[in-house]
């Protein structure tokens, strides 16, 4: 394409700017809605306890050599014995998260609320953009780009002859959707709830299973070789004192 496409200024006034403004406003609205719907979930004592057991067992593993072997053996037994050790998870009792979700309606409710506040506005805006502005070339970025960016910037226009630096309206929507996080953190403060990427991470981390890490910790403890370091310390202390005396 030799000659440039001329974009109507009306497109700027009626497509580009309204789209951005609407996206920002929806983001803000979503923040407040999710703030309203958020329930403070009381942590489960069992989960907290398991977390603490893991920390303590990890400490034991890391610093095992600092306590006498008698003390270490007693603790190891306390953690790993097969009957009622702290780290021992009886077979079949490890709750899998799906079952847990089914048994606890609150959890499913929470998930649904989170999803609703995220998905509904997104589908609505997407439908709105698609309906009103499909096929618009909404903006032009002031530098040339390679062909690879076509799918990113010209979503919704199937013309291979248009220069890649033109941005279609639907692509503008996506750019806004993912690119406004910095702006939101300015408007709404650092820890705003509209952080989509973080939320997705949460979703994927949902399947976290504490019983697995308990088992891993138990295996780790089982193979720890106890080697008391204190006798070495005695020698080193002698060296330290000698140095002090000679200085």
């Amino acid at each position, binding site marked *: 394409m030799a000659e440039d496409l001329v974009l109507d200024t009306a497109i700027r006034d009626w497509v580009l700017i309204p789209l951005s403004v609407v996206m920002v406003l929806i983001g803000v609205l979503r923040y407040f809605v999710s703030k309203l719907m958020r329930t403070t979930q009381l942590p489960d004592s069992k989960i907290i306890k398991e977390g603490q057991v893991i*920390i303590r067992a990890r400490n034991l593993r890391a610093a095992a050599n600092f306590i006498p072997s008698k003390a270490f053996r007693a603790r190891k037994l306390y953690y790993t014995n097969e009957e009622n050790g702290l780290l021992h998870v009886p077979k079949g009792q490890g709750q899998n998260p799906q079952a847990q979700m089914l048994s606890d309606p609150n959890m499913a409710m929470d998930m649904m609320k989170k999803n609703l506040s995220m998905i509904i506005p997104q589908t609505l805006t997407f439908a709105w953009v698609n309906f009103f502005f499909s096929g618009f070339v909404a903006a032009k970025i002031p530098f040339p780009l390679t062909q690879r960016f076509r799918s990113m910037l010209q979503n919704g226009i199937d013309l291979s002859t248009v220069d890649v630096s033109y941005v279609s309206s639907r692509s503008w929507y996506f750019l806004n959707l993912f690119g406004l996080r910095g702006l939101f953190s300015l408007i709404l403060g650092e820890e705003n709830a509209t952080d989509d990427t973080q939320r997705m991470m949460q979703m994927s981390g949902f399947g976290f299973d504490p019983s697995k890490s308990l088992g891993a910790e138990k295996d780790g403890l089982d193979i720890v070789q106890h080697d008391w370091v204190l006798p070495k310390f005695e020698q080193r202390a002698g060296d330290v004192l000698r140095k002090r005396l000679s200085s």
Partner: protein
Amino acid sequence: MVSKTEESQLQQLENQVENGGGGAWEYLSLVRKLKLRRSDKVLKHGLALLNDPKKRSALGPDEWNLYEQVATAALDCQCLEVAKDCIKVLQKKFPGSKRVGRLEAMLLEAKGSWDEAEKAYSSLLEDNALDQVISMRRVAMAKARGDILGAIDWLNKYLEIFMADHDAWRELAEIYVSLQMYKQAAFCYEELILSQPMIPLHHLAYADVLYTIGGLENLQTAKKYYASTIELTGGKNTRALYGICLCTSAIAQLTKGKNNEDKEISTLAAAALEKDYKQSSPDKVSLLASTLKTMKLQ
């Protein structure tokens, strides 16, 4: 844990605030963030902030945090009237809040009406059994009432869930030592060494407990822990130096010289002690010499 930079920052802010240089709010925020106990200063500067309507409203929603902070500090300083006023303001703003309920219970505790405070705490715990602050307050209250066994009970209940809380372990260890339950105390100190293996104070306390329990094996272990304290402190801990000497002489007494235990370190420790005494208090050197002589180290 307070890092070095934060500590210096705090010190700087404290000096600035003490000399009337402003920055009171920053100082108070830092104290709150680091969870330090500077009740007198928090009370003084926080109250000054709260009594100045212009400054107070400039804080925005943080105003209520400040009220809470000042109320807690006032309770610590036994300024019950101030605390009562703060809590009243908070009550008006947040009726039915559990956080305010906690403050009210603490007010009752500060007044010394133990039974009412106990009741308030238990009802708060019924709502949220995992509230660490309330569980800790209950331990503190039992201790303040002189109900040491009750304190141990509560602490054990607390540690059953929050078993990685090393401060609680230290508290429990100190209580056990005060009750002369050394075996239990030793366990707690082991736990502390596990969670913070590089802090010499735990090694020292553990060695003390082992030495007090006595017996050849324990004495030998205690000696090793005194040695590790010396290593970790660079030989500057007088108590550990004495500990080594005492352990050596006690072991020699028990084995009646049959055991050819390595005596080198205790002679070194004795020499280090002598050097320290000559440096910092020359008039007590003779006392040290006679003490060491009774331990047959000189």
